């Protein structure tokens, strides 16, 4: 992908904001991103909006908060990967010269969804009756069987992400003192071996990115490095024996391997070039598996790398530097854009206490409903 840059980013902190509307969260995240870019909404030539839980057309309605300028507004939805998929559409449009500057906005209110939901009283199918966390727990049981993983490995990922989140003012979960492996293990069991502190919370929030031509980035903000989007890939599943067609699925492991291969090829970069990585860590077992599937370590080595602290801040390649889905939160629509927010700040050297020294290359990985994988690679000039 050529000459596409992240011109600005903004967030409305993820949390349980039952009294705050999507319009307010979306407007504040969007205005923060415009200010960060040094642009006005009048400069936006198109908008890509993502949400999962709000009614049809909520994206266009929320966009009216910024003013009615007649620009094309397009909804993009891909479950957890909604924000990442909307970001991709924006990047493709700029890369192909259709627009110079566009807005990507994601927001969601899971608290409203939970209040309205009939879940718990009337599932409509067999799969609805089962807690979604169970499907990720099945992956963990399998890993323990095949590779000798222990719950302690998952707890160390949970503790790392909580402690990273404590360094991020936009993180939903803010631990008041360092979180230990023991504390994560002792938190409430959800679906064995996954505990609440190995799992993402429900929440509300918004995140925004302004995407545009890379030459504009230099002109608008000559005071800081240009953050480029150098590769983007979105893939769906390929059939293989044992494929699961029903239930909230984890998705075939091969999908992350294939999608990452695609972005490595497009960018000419490899896993060894990465300075930091964000993944779809809705559950700690996912993050552990993605270490290997993204090529951060060899198959079967994740446990040893965790024990060495390879993926912690200060380690070989820090992962989920902003707290990940587990601590920073996972409202849905904005989640993938929170990864772009974090990676952009890190590459600019503006990530404060969680800054990865000299970060030049970052990768953002999201899964949508276990059925799509979206990966972007961002670099600093």
């Amino acid at each position, binding site marked *: 992908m050529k000459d596409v840059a992240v011109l600005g980013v903004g967030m409305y902190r993820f949390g349980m904001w039952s009294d705050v509307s999507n319009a307010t969260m979306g407007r504040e995240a969007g205005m923060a991103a415009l200010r960060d870019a040094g642009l006005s909404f009048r400069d936006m030539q198109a908008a890509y909006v993502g949400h999962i839980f709000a009614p049809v057309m909520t994206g266009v309605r929320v966009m009216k908060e910024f003013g009615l300028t007649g620009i094309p507004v397009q909804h993009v939805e891909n479950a957890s990967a909604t924000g990442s998929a909307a970001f991709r559409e924006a990047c493709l449009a700029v890369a192909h010269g259709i627009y110079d500057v566009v807005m990507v906005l994601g927001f969601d209110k899971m608290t409203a969804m939970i209040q309205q939901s009939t879940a718990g009283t009337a599932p409509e199918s067999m799969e609805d009756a*089962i807690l979604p966390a169970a499907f990720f727990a*099945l*992956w963990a049981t*399998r890993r323990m069987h095949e590779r000798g993983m222990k719950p302690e490995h998952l707890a160390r990922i949970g503790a790392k992400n909580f402690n990273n989140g404590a360094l991020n003012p936009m993180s939903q979960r803010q631990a008041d003192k360092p979180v230990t492996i023991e504390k994560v293990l002792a938190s409430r069991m*959800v679906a*064995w*071996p996954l505990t609440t502190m190995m799992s993402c919370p429900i929440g509300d929030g918004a995140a925004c990115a302004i995407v545009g031509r890379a030459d504009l980035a230099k002109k608008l903000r000559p005071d800081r490095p240009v953050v480029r989007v150098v590769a983007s890939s979105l893939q769906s599943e390929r059939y293989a024996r044992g494929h699961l067609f029903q239930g909230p699925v984890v998705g075939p492991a091969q999908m992350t391997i294939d999608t990452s291969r695609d972005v490595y090829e497009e960018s000419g970069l490899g896993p060894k070039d990465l300075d930091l990585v964000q993944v779809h860590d809705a559950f700690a077992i996912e993050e552990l598996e993605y270490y290997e599937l993204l090529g951060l370590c060899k198959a079967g080595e994740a446990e040893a790398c965790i024990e060495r602290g390879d993926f912690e801040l200060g380690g070989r390649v820090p992962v989920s530097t902003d707290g990940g889905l587990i601590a920073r939160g996972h409202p849905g629509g904005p989640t993938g854009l929170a990864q772009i927010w974090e990676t952009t700040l890190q590459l600019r050297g503006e990530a404060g206490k969680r800054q990865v020294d000299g970060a030049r290359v970052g990768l953002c990985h999201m899964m949508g409903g276990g059925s799509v994988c979206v990966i972007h690679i961002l670099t600093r000039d």
Partner: protein
Amino acid sequence: MPDANRPRVPIKPGFFTVPDDPAEPPKFLSSRCDSCGEYFYPRRAICAQCLSEKMTDVELEGRGTLYSYTFVHIPLFGSTNIEHMEGYGVGQIDLPEGPRIQAPLAGKQPEFHIGLKVVAELDTLREDGGRDLVIVRFRPVPESEVTR
């Protein structure tokens, strides 16, 4: 509570059989591709592997092998069955023909292990207008019944 005299209906039609004899295990409504021979659950019109439209409806026996399992420490959604209040097992079950199915498991966690032989049974979620609303779950096959 389950009542042998109440009719049983599936929570959603089109996925499994509800035999008249309560002792008979349910079967899975599946498809076989006439072109490449691959089996699929649930039913589909086009083969996911070779894209053939020549698919035949088949019913697969509810017997398989546990590929993975967990135990959920939260009551089963939508259930008024007292048995589900303290949580429930969930498994991925490989049928011998190929399909892998995710479903609740009967029993407690110490009874589960990867490779366990399991058999399908209907499980009452709740009463619904004089009928029992049922789902499919799998239970361990007692060692004495394992034939292979």
